[in-house]
Structure formats: C-alpha cells, structure tokens
C-alpha cells in the first residue's frame, strides 16, 4: 500500500499519523508541494484533482483524507481499536458529524490564515491587506470557539473518554496556522490541554515528527517567493485568493 503525502499538508498528516500510530504498513511517497509536484504529468495520472493525500492499494486509488481514514479502519479492522471509529451508530454519527462540519469550517479557516501568511504575497505580489487578514483570523476564531463549545466541551476527547478520527482530523488542522507564526491555541487552555492528550495518545515523538516540516519551515514565505518551480503556478494560486 502506498500513501502519497507531503507532511506540510494537514490532511496528509492525519492519514500519516493514523496509519503509523495503529501500525498499518505503507510506503511513503513524497509529493513535494513546494516544488509544485502535484502538477506534474505523472501525478495527474494518479489523481486528476491534483491534491494529496492519495492512497494506492494495489490497483485501487483513493483520494480524500477522511475517505482514506475510513478505508483503513474498514480494511484493517482487526488492528484498529473500536474507539477510532466506533461501531455504535450514535457515536459513529458524532465522528461523521465532525468530519463533515470541519471541511468548510475549521479546515477552511485555519488553512486560509496559513495561506494568507505564506502564499498571498507571492501569488498577489503584495502584502495581505489588513481587513483580509483580520477577517480570516475572525473566521478562525469562530471555528475554534465552535470546536470548544459544540464538539469538545469539557470532555477529554470529542467523543468522550477516548480519541477518535474526529480528534485526529481536528488537531492537524489546528496546528497549521502555527507554521505561519499564528498561535491558534493562544488563550485557549481547554484546547491546549486537549491537544496534549491527543498528542499523548498518538505518541509524542510521532506527533512532533509529523509536524516537523510545518514548524521548522523557516521563512516559508521566502522559500515560496524564491522557488523556481512555483513561478509558473502563480496564476493557479491567484485563484485561491479571489
């Protein structure tokens, strides 16, 4: 089984963390986003949508991290403990509810903050206008508020006593703004404590290793600016910000 990943991407991190933490063997195939490798002809044959992660299991190709996670749970059911994606209908519905909500909420807003900081100057040729940044931070704040007040509350994890796919998918998105110098956890002790619990369940070393590329990207904005590979992708990136 092959997983096409770049750990700078949150959905790649969730798939990587899950497979590694529960011990599902796979081959890590790097698709270097900062080199625009997702736009190569070769990658296009694998996934016409040109996004990662992608799973390749024999001849079966699957995209979308949440679909991949569920596929891994179903395929490796004997190795995956029930709490990740409970068989109980109502508990499973809670996971599905979070996984659905997060696409256009936490994921979108955390990603926007990150992209505005790192990619906007390159794509648009100027610094991010203050109102745009403020609006993005405000949207992110609202999503984080909902994560705390609707999904987590005072429970140790989203579903209750144990970690599930919901916590995994939430934590990797929440970490993304940190890679651009924005602390999404600032003044949120409840979320910070939850993040530490999630990290412990996954394995602290593994969690840190998965986030290394994101957090150690010194001057990501500069790297993007100077990348020869990304020059021709500038019109593609413009679309992200219109």
């Amino acid at each position: 089984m092959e997983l096409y990943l770049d750990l700078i991407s949150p959905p790649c991190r969730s798939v990587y963390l899950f497979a590694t933490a529960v011990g599902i063997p796979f081959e890590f195939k790097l698709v270097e986003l900062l080199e625009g490798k997702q736009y190569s002809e070769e990658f296009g044959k694998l996934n016409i949508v040109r996004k990662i992660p992608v799973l390749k299991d024999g001849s079966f190709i699957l995209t979308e991290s949440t679909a991949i996670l569920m596929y891994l749970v179903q395929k490796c059911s004997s190795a995956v403990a029930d709490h990740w994606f409970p068989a109980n209908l109502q508990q499973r519905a809670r996971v599905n509810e979070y996984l659905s909500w997060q696409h256009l909420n936490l994921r979108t807003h955390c990603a926007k903050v990150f992209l505005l900081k790192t990619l906007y100057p390159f794509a648009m040729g100027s610094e991010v206008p203050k109102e745009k940044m403020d609006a993005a931070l405000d949207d992110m704040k609202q999503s984080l508020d909902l994560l705390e007040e609707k999904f987590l509350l005072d429970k140790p994890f989203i579903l209750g006593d144990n970690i599930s796919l919901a916590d995994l998918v939430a934590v990797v998105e929440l970490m993304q703004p940190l890679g651009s110098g924005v602390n999404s956890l600032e003044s949120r002790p409840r979320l910070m404590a939850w993040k530490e619990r999630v990290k412990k369940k996954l394995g602290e070393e593994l969690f840190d290793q998965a986030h290394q590329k994101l957090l150690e990207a010194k001057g990501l904005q500069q790297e993007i600016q100077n990348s020869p590979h990304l020059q021709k992708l500038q019109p593609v990136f413009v679309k992200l910000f219109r």
Partner: protein
Amino acid sequence: MKLRCLCVLPGEHFGEEFGKINLMRKVPALRDGDFYLAESIAIMIYLAEKFETPDFWYPTDIRQRARVNEYLSWQHQGIRTHSSKVFWLRVMIPMVMGVEVPKEKMDAALEDLNSSLKLIEEKFLDDRPFIAGDQVSLADIVAIVEIMQPVGSGLDVFQGRLKLSAWRDRVQAAIGKELFDEAHQAILGAQENVKLLDPTVLQASKSKILRYFM
C-alpha cells in the same frame, strides 16, 4: 421519526428553540429521542444504518463505500461551495439584498462551477452509471441536490452536458420523479419566491454575507 419542516429564511433558525437542537443554527438537523445530530452527510449515513436501508445506498463493500465517502468528502469544497455561491450571486444578493454583483466575481464563480462539473463528469462518474458504480448511492443524492442549486437560479447547467444529463435522469428514476420534483419545488421556484421575501431579514447578516461571497 417525524419530519418536521421549518422554514429557514424567515429566521426561525435563529430562535432559542432551534438553538437547543443545533448550536450551529443550520439545517438540516436531526433529533432522535434525546440524540441530536447536525450535518446532512452524518444524518444520511445515520438513517441508512439505523433503518438498514438497501445496501446500495451506503455499500458495505469496502471499495464501493470508499468511492461514496470520497465523493461525500470532496463535494464540500469541490462543488457545494461553488454551486451555493452561484445561487447567492445570481439570486439572493442582487434580488433580495439589492446589491450589484461585479462581473469578475460572477465570472470567477461560474468558472469554478464549470470546473467542478467537469470533474464530476470525468472523475466521479467517468464511464459508470452512478458515482459508486452500477447503482445509485448517497453520493448521487448529495451530488444532484447541489447541482440543482444553480438551476434554481435560472442557470441550466445540464445543457450541453450529455453525461451529466443522462446521469440526472438515472438518479431521478432511482429516487422517483415525483419525489424528486417535490423536493426541488422550492429551489426551482426560488427566482419567483424571493420577490416575496422581506429584505430586512438578511440585513443583519449583510456585511457577513457580502464578505463571504464577494
């Protein structure tokens, strides 16, 4: 389980009672005894599994299920965002809020919608009768309702798209044409019905709406 209809536009979803059902104040929302659930995808899967509906709706076969899950995940950002935007830019913003939509914004939204529809035809349908294969599934339902949204704004997205049109006919037949038409009555009558709306209802959210869509 009873189906209770509430009309979203007049602001009922901002009421205190609905806030207890769904903190995020969005529809659809499900209440099964003391179990509350939001998010249409989660609700559909819950219903399919609770009522043990025929397998094809949410197949147990691992690969077919993965195909359904793949579509259900992609569609949030992949089509829903764009089809919803086109509806708001063509109907709600100019007709209800009386705000003119700049041509570049409309063109950009249409470009995104067209790219999405192309992907649906090329990747998610390909040469299959339905998204998951030979039979209809939750994926087709979720797809068709989003695609009908711009149709409700007067944009016939099926015109010139033979594959998509043929698929639509199959989905309609699988659901039942009468039920399909009943479900789409409101959206297809939208351009007429919005003329009857009180524009002040959206005034409170005006800046947020404009910021989001424009």
